[in-house]
Each structure stands twice: as structure tokens, then as C-alpha cells.
């Protein structure tokens, strides 16, 4: 189902008009001229709009339901994907998926949150909000990558770790802490990509990596703009202000030295061209893994730690 963002309305209307004209067209020359004219206008507005998205608009794009999700990346980028389930302690959490697979000829461990794309799958994946079991599964898979000297690819897309009674009882804090620790311990390359929403502790749990990439319109934040607004502005109505103030865009985070690279999205955002988006993400990951190949494990770990220790200190 197509889903349109409020600020995309002028573009969507023009595109609807084009469809309409095409349907009625008796292939008259005038009509095809008209179509071309409208198309040009739509393209122009699209380019203009996406060239200067506000932080708040990026939040909407990053959460767009038609944006490619973990499973879309797996389908297109990974051969022989073999999902692995369970934390060996309590249960299986489908909010965080993971397994073994072959990415551009290379055996890898792939982990990431899956938000789901319809009611049924969203419930199955708990909207990508991971429980302790999911983080413990991630730890298990990262350790497996270490054991077999396989690179780890993580795809981050979550509003945040699941806030629930059982999640607290089973140690959500400990699970996230140990996941970060595992990221920082493994002696094998790790590349993380924020493909949609990077929601706070739930995101960093699988993103303390050698290289952190971010899609052009993805967001990565310590707290949701809504949550921040309701605490600091005392009202969620100020979410737009919070989104701007928190510096959550890929562009801001690259400038702050929090992420390493921005991956350009197809014009009009990933939701307009999911397959092209997945391919370009694949190209970037392949390039980064190529750069990291040949660096021995202990050096990788030392450099990874050094990177985080120096973060925020422009010395």
C-alpha cells in the first residue's frame, strides 16, 4: 500500500495527474507534452523538497513504512541466508533478526531489527522493538562471527528497545550493555548501517562498529524527538524543535564525527526506490568490508575502541 507523507503531497498530486492523463490519453501529441511538462514539474519539486528536508521531515522519511527493511536487504543482498534463532537462555525475539549468509561472495553474520510491513508481521517482529532475548541472540551471533572469523553486518532500524515489564525483569539493561561490550570485544570486522531509525540504546547495542554508515535520510538519536520534547519542553507538541536541536540527521552526525559515512538515497527517498536503495547500501558495505579485510583482529579491536574513545573530542 502506498503511503504518502504530508509534505510530499504536491508531488503526489502531480504524479496522480500524470497517471490520470495516461489513462485517458488517446495518444494525442498534446497530452504527451502535457504529461512531460507535469513530470518535469513534479521532478523539480521532488528535488527541491529533498534537497532541504528539515530534521522533522527526515524523522518522517526514516519511519516511512515503505522504506526497505531488514528482510528486503536480506532478500536482495544475501545468498544462502540461514536465519538463526534464540538466545539459548529464554526465547526467540523476532524484533531482531540474524543469521549466516553470503554477501557478495563473502560468508557473514548479519543482524538487525525488522519492523515488519503489515499488521501481522509488525506484531510478529514487535515493530522492531527488541527485547533482552533479541540482544542476547545478537551477542551470540557476534561471538559466532568472532569464532569463525566472519565479518558482522548490522542493519539498525528501531524506534528503541522494548519498554515492558518482562523486558525489565529479564534484564533489558544488562542485555544492551553486554551487546555493546560484545561489539567492542570481537576481533573481526563489523560494519553497521542505520537504514531507518536509530533509536538510542536499542540501536547502539548493535552499532558500536568499526564503521558506522547511515542512509541519507535516516535518523539516529539518543531519545525520540517526541520523548525529548515531552521532557525538556514539557509537551510532545515541540517534537519538531527537539528533532532540530538533537542533531539526529546523517549530515549533522557526520559533522560531529559520530558516524563515518553517508549513503546517498535515490531521489525522493528510499521509499520511492527500495531496490536501488538496497543495492547502493550493499555497494557501500562491500567497499567498507574490503577496506577492513586484511587488518588483523586485535588491531581492528584496538582501533574500534580508539575510535569511540576519541569521539566527541576533536583534538
Amino acid at each position, binding site marked *: 500500500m502506498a503511503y504518502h507523507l504530508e509534505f510530499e503531497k504536491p508531488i503526489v498530486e502531480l504524479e496522480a495527474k500524470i497517471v490520470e492523463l495516461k489513462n485517458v490519453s488517446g495518444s494525442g501529441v498534446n497530452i504527451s507534452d502535457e504529461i512531460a511538462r507535469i513530470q518535469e514539474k513534479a521532478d523539480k519539486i521532488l528535488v527541491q523538497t529533498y534537497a532541504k528536508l528539515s530534521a522533522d521531515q527526515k524523522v518522517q522519511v526514516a519511519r516511512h513504512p515503505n522504506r526497505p527493511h531488514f528482510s528486503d536487504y536480506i532478500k536482495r543482498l544475501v545468498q544462502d541466508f540461514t536465519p538463526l534463532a534464540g538466545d539459548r537462555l529464554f526465547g526467540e525475539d523476532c524484533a531482531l533478526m540474524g543469521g549466516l549468509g553470503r554477501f557478495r561472495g563473502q560468508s557473514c553474520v548479519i543482524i538487525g531489527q525488522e519492523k515488519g510491513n503489515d499488521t501481522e508481521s509488525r506484531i510478529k517482529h514487535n515493530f522492531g522493538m527488541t527485547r533482552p532475548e533479541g540482544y542476547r541472540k545478537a551477542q551470540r551471533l557476534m561471538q559466532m562471527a568472532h569464532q569463525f572469523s566472519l565479518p558482522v553486518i548490522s542493519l539498525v532500524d528501531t524506534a528503541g528497545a522494548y*519498554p515492558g515489564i518482562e523486558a*525489565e525483569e529479564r534484564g533489558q539493561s*544488562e542485555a544492551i550493555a553486554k551487546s555493546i561490550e560484545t561489539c567492542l570485544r570481537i576481533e573481526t570486522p563489523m560494519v553497521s548501517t542505520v537504514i531507518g531509525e536509530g533509536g538510542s540504546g536499542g540501536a547502539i547495542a548493535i552499532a558500536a562498529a568499526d564503521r558506522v554508515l547511515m542512509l541519507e535520510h535516516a535518523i539516529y*538519536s*539518543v531519545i525520540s524527538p517526541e520523548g525529548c520534547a515531552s521532557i525538556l519542553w514539557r509537551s510532545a507538541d*515541540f517534537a519538531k524543535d527537539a528533532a532540530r*536541536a*538533537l542533531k539526529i540527521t546523517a549530515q549533522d552526525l557526520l559533522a560531529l564525527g*559520530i558516524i563515518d559515512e553517508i549513503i546517498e538515497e535515490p531521489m525522493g527517498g528510499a521509499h520511492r526506490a527500495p531496490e536501488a536503495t538496497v543495492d547502493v547500501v550493499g555497494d557501500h558495505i562491500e567497499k567498507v568490508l574490503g577496506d577492513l579485510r586484511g587488518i588483523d583482529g586485535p588491531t581492528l579491536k584496538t582501533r574500534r575502541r580508539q575510535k569511540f574513545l576519541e569521539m566527541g573530542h576533536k583534538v
Partner: protein
Amino acid sequence: MSWITNFVRPKIKALITTKDVPDNLWAKCPGCEAMLHHAEMVKNQNVCQHCDHHMRLPIEERLKLLFDEGQYKLVELAKTTTDPLKFRDRKKYTDRLKDAQSATKRKDTIVVAEGTIGGKNAVIAGFDFKFMGGSMGAAVGDGLVTAARLAVGNKAAFIVIPASGGARMQEGMISLMQMPRSVIAVELVKEAKLPYIVLLTDPTTGGVSASFAMLGDVHIAEPGAQIGFAGRRVIQETIRASLPDGFQTAEYLLDHGMVDMVVHRNDLHQTFAKLLRLLMNTKKDKAA
């Protein structure tokens, strides 16, 4: 919350010039509602003598309580807190910082001290909750890394005492990055095979609990302390149900296997001394 800030702040002054602050001489215990005289409170480390309710304790008092003979040396922390995002909500972050700095007389929430506990070298990094709710920004990460390196250099045990609501939102993603940074600090200590012990005090939540605070070799919690990842309100709004009694308290975490022990404030020094002697004496005693 305002009860304790009202009470704690004038305390030092009150000891010198009692007459000036008659309003703050008595305060009501949130546990049993008994009226408590501040002199008794000070003597009793902010624990109610009627019901054992543990109220928040200033970090200096904690250091005195934990180190041998109450003797310790404060470690100077180099960096001052900056405002990397030029953050402004209803108020500028720099103004919030200034207010917190003048109220607490420190640069940021974190305090690092060294000394001995049970005769063993120890470095403590503690939080001052009164400084912006003990929130974790770059200064906290820096302080923890400094403290961890000092512990490794001194062959000392590393003890952290969080009292924090979590990340400092005003530092945005830089505050989130203190989670991996603090984990690395802990790794340095663990790799040196030195003990890392966390004393979980009220409150330890959010990004603080989901990083260094849950990675201790031993977790000690104070009675009644609130410890957890997500805030109570967020959970309630998500699940649309009420929370169980004692949810996210120290005792609840003990029941669920997340802490090793819940220890009364009066017994903390002894507990730490015993643990450090057990963890740091590797040779067999001669005497039977």
C-alpha cells in the same frame, strides 16, 4: 524529589549556623512519614532510623563512608563540559550547566577519588544526582575513562556509584556515545584483571543502567533504589497496564537475578572491604 534537595542543600550551612535555617531542621521520611531531625539524619547517613528508608546521599558522604577512615584524594578531571550541539530547549544548555555548576560547585556530575578500602587500593567514580539528574554526557565518559586508567595504573579496584536518570539529552548523540565509551573504560579494568564493582544507588536508569552499570563483576544495590532501563511512565504508556508492586526496585532486581546483593548503607564499607580482600588476595593465608 524536592524534599531531598531542600533538605540536603542547606545541610552544610545548617551545621554551622543552625539558627538561620529553622525550616529545614525537620523533614518527613518518605517511607514512614516520621518527622526526622536533620542532625540525626546526618549521623545516620540519610537513612531513616524508624523504617530504614534510604534517602539519597551526597557523593562526598558516600566517599567518606566507603574509603578507609573516610580518607580519600579527589582526582582532578581535566576537561570542562562544553555545548557541542549549541543545544537549547526552553533554556540554553549552557545556562543549565552554569546553574548546576554554581549549585553544586563542580564542573559536572562525575566525581573521581582514590584511596583504600579494606586496605586495598580503590578508585571510585561517583555521580552527583543534583548535577542535572546525574545525566551522562561527555564529561561522564571522560571521567570514567580517567578513573579506569587510574585504577589500572594503581592496580586498584574500580568502583562506580551511578545515581543517574540516564543520558544527557542536551548532548544528543554525543551522550549516547558515552555508552560504548564507558564500556571501554570497564574493559580496561577487566583486562587488567582488577575488580569492577558497581554500587547501584537511586536512581540508575536509561543509558547508564544499559552500559557500564550492568557490567560489574559484582553488583551491589542500595535498599529501595530504582534501577531499570525504561522509565515507568514510558512502560505504562506502552503496555497500557499498571506495574507490579516494587517494580524496578533493588529488591526486585535481586529477585530477577540482576544484582548480587542489596546492602544497608551501614554495612557498605564492610561489604566492599570484604569483597576487595577476597578478590585481590590471591595468595593463601598462612594462618588457619
